[in-house]
């Protein structure tokens, strides 16, 4: 595989191409300070990246893979039943978190990781210990590990839980990863080993810290962690270079590797705010008592090292980071402005716990009853350690199982409903009606919120339909996109039905149950190809509606016409949908109608 990376317009080894490999090297120097998030489908480059991590870690350091559906037992640890029975005393089986001490965990398919799993990983990572309180065992096990998450998300909505992403210093995107093709690892295992030994003695001058914090802020990184990670990266970089204190070069490397790929906005074009900001604030330090005595001296670290000019450094970092911000980020940011910070946590939506379908996510103690299924194996496992005691108490049977032993399987269902509002913003739905429709949607939104449903919004007018808001649980966003909705133009009803069906099927693939709520008078007058042709528009709309029925997507048509329209009712019928005229119907009635139409997926008994 020696085809030189054939990127158009590229000549010779482009600087920065091996950045992901550098990130891995820095992580190998300081696993706990770094951590890598690799967003890419499986690829030879990804394998190479993992292999280079393995090669750079000490040979005895564990590098353990955490499957996406890992059970609490495997993750946190638990009772080792065979060993316990053999030994006649409780024997603890270490979980992955504790076993990774001194090494790293590789999180597979991080974009699908459940939030509670992520929270457990993060808690152990932060506290450097596993708190095990399970099934008769209470242990605290010290563990210090690094994280590498593999994110195979395909689109923007498939992201690892934000809490996890926030703890990973180096975010490597698919393009950056692909660019590493053919790159040689920039550091050898020996260099990394030397750097690791040197690391504790490496200082980071105050000026470098200031400049990194300022740069993180300038690029819209609100969380404080990226700044902390950049400081750690600068330290690791200095250790790799054989320096005892981080320099401008280390700071630039840290900014490029940690801050640039995560930039959420570009620094305002006005003269860099850093220098001024740095001049005054020391006067208004945090709370006075904080400053009063243990004034944290900027650690007499400048000893011997050359003076670093914070202003110049801040500017340098800004430029270095700017140059490394991935292409296309600007455009992406401009339409994703409100969804900063990742918004929803991956695809793991609200999960109904009391369900018999979905993915089993472990067991819990409890009586099997309606809506709960006895897990026989786990029940016997739970009963096993107590057998000697019960036998002594005079139980005659060979195996005595009691109520306390019952274990039921918990299922997790990424269910909830995705309610997709399809709003007719055409001229025929006169402006006043549009306002009413918006009002109704707002009310419905509040209800969706209470049920923790996801909502999405499609609007149609003129010649096409547009997904204004992909499924989200953020009400504020839904409300905002609704408010900004202009009215007027033709009624491309067929296109609207097509588009909403696509969104609905997509939502279904993600494991939620879609519900379409159309707010329209049903008077389509624009055909799929954009022509103003009433007859074709009507036929096509009915056609599209039948496709909705065929896919068995639940739907409701709320007629926003001045008086109940045959057209809207017709549309509803073709869709197999409920029908509710809005005129005179107060918002509460509409709400009722939607509630009645809402499918109830696995919402236990």
């Amino acid at each position, binding site marked *: 595989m020696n085809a030189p990376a054939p990127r158009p317009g590229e000549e010779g080894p482009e600087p920065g191409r091996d950045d992901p490999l550098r990130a891995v090297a820095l992580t190998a120097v300081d696993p706990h300070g770094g951590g890598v998030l690799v967003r890419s489908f499986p690829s030879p480059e990804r394998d190479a990246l993992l292999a280079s991590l393995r090669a750079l870690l000490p040979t005895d350091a564990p590098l353990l893979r955490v499957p996406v559906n890992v059970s609490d037992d495997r993750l*946190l640890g638990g009772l080792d039943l065979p060993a316990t029975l053999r030994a006649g005393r409780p024997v603890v089986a270490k979980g992955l978190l504790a076993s990774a001490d001194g090494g790293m965990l590789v999180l597979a398919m991080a974009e699908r990781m459940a939030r509670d799993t992520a929270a457990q990983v993060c808690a152990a990572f932060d506290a450097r210990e596993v708190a095990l309180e399970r099934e008769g065992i209470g242990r605290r096990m010290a563990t210090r590990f690094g994280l590498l998450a593999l994110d195979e998300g395909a689109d923007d909505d498939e992201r690892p839980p934000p809490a996890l992403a926030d703890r990973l210093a180096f975010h490597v995107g698919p393009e950056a990863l692909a660019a590493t093709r053919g790159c040689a690892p920039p550091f050898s295992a020996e260099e990394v080993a030397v750097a690791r030994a040197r690391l504790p003695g490496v200082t980071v001058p105050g000026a470098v*810290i200031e400049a990194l914090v300022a740069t993180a802020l300038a690029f819209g990184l609100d969380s*404080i962690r990226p700044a*902390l990670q950049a400081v750690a990266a600068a330290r690791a970089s200095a250790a790799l270079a054989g320096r005892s204190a981080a320099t401008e070069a280390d700071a630039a490397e840290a900014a490029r590797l940690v801050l640039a790929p995560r930039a959420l906005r570009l620094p305002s074009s006005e003269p860099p705010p850093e220098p001024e*900001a740095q001049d005054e604030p020391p006067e208004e330090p945090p709370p006075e008592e904080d400053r009063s005595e243990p004034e944290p001296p900027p650690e007499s670290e400048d000893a011997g090292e050359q003076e670093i000019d914070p202003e110049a450094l801040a500017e340098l970092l800004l430029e270095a980071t700017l140059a490394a911000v991935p292409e296309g980020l600007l455009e992406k940011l401009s339409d994703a402005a409100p969804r900063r910070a990742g918004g929803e946590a991956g695809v793991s939506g609200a999960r109904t716990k009391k369900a018999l379908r979905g993915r089993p996510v472990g067991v819990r103690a409890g009586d099997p009853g309606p809506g709960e299924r006895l897990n026989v194996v786990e029940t016997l496992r739970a009963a096993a350690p107590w057998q000697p005691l019960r036998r002594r108490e005079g139980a005659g049977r060979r195996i005595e199982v*009691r109520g306390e032993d019952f274990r039921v399987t918990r299922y997790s269902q990424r269910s909830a409903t995705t309610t997709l509002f399809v709003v007719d913003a055409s001229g025929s739905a006169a402006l006043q009606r549009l306002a009413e429709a918006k009002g109704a949607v707002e009310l419905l939104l509040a209800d969706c919120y209470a049920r923790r449903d996801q909502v999405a919004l499609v609007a149609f007018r003129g010649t096409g339909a547009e997904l204004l808001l992909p499924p989200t649980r953020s009400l504020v966003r839904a409300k905002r996109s609704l408010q900004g909705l202009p009215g007027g133009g033709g009624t491309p009803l067929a296109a609207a039905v097509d588009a909403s069906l696509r969104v609905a099927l997509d939502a279904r693939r993600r494991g939620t149950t879609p519900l379409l709520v159309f707010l329209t008078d049903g008077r389509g007058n624009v055909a799929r190809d954009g022509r103003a042709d009433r007859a074709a528009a009507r036929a096509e709309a009915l056609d599209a509606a039948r496709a909705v029925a065929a896919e068995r997507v639940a739907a409701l048509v709320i007629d926003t016409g001045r008086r109940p329209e045959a057209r809207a009712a017709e549309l509803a019928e073709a869709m197999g949908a409920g029908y509710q005229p809005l005129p005179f119907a107060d918002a509460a009635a509409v709400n009722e109608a939607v509630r009645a139409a809402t499918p109830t997926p696995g919402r236990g008994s």
Partner: protein
Amino acid sequence: MKTTYPFAAIVGQEEMKQALILAAVDPSIGGVMIFGDRGTGKSTAVRGLAELLPRIRVVEHCPYGCAPERTAGLCGACTGRAKDAPPPKSRQTTVPVVDLPLGATEDRVVGALDLERALTVAEKAFEPGLLARANRGFLYIDEVNLLEDHLVDLLIDVAASGENVVEREGLSVRHPARFVLVGSGNPEEGELRPQLLDRFGLSVDVTTPDDLATRVEVVRRRDAYERDPEAFAEKWKRQTGKIRRAIEKGRERLDAVDVPDATLEQAAGLCMKLGTDGLRGELTLIRTARAAAAYAGDEAATAEHLRAIAPAALRHRLRRNVLDDAGSTVRVEKALEEVFGA
């Protein structure tokens, strides 16, 4: 044991620190819920709490840490002993700040049959759980919104009654479990059920500081701590001691703090204006104001104290208006303006 990051060294986040301190001054305020962005030091603050709390005396070998000088609200064994004349042997210890980790199973939380004893000597013995350990102290749940519902219900129940009742494996045990419940969570990770939220006395929102100087200070201190936790903690020892003594004094003074009628009226007015349901809000408001006065060394709880603590005491009790962009903090501030005048 790893040295924890000192509470006193947390930069800013005054409201969170105040809420935790006041809950330590008067545990009857009823728990603190901390909402906040990622990386704002929520867990750090709670874990640092242990160091701040004045030490307590506990009965030797009592797994529930019963107070030797008391005669009521004790565990079974200590209640029996309290009737006898000689006071039990006791020792000084730190106030427990117990972590309830995610993934904890119910048996570990409420207590269950001692597995080790059952296996080794085939003997039935009760092994107290986390609730027992938290008695007279704090019980902390990080990411409380991710905790299993049945555990949450159980905690609410115990926190309200102050007693843990265990009926398992033919064991029947009841023991005191009086603790201050502290929860933290990131609203982005999921909402908290209103029933649970309402059980917390105080609720604070923490945000990442947005000014550069503060952020630099946060990173600097964190960096210094990471490099040498012991030295860092040593540097902040005096500050920590100062807060501890203030809490101690506040506790002693608490009963003597006067709550004048004017303050009571203002509290009632505030709750009326905001339409908070039930008396819990009003009660919390008054208790917290009194604790604030005690901590500050003032003789009476005044409008000033009320004003300072009202957002924390009330913001989670407002009727939800999910479409109202103005946060509940803003609504409380507005009501404060109206009741106290500009």
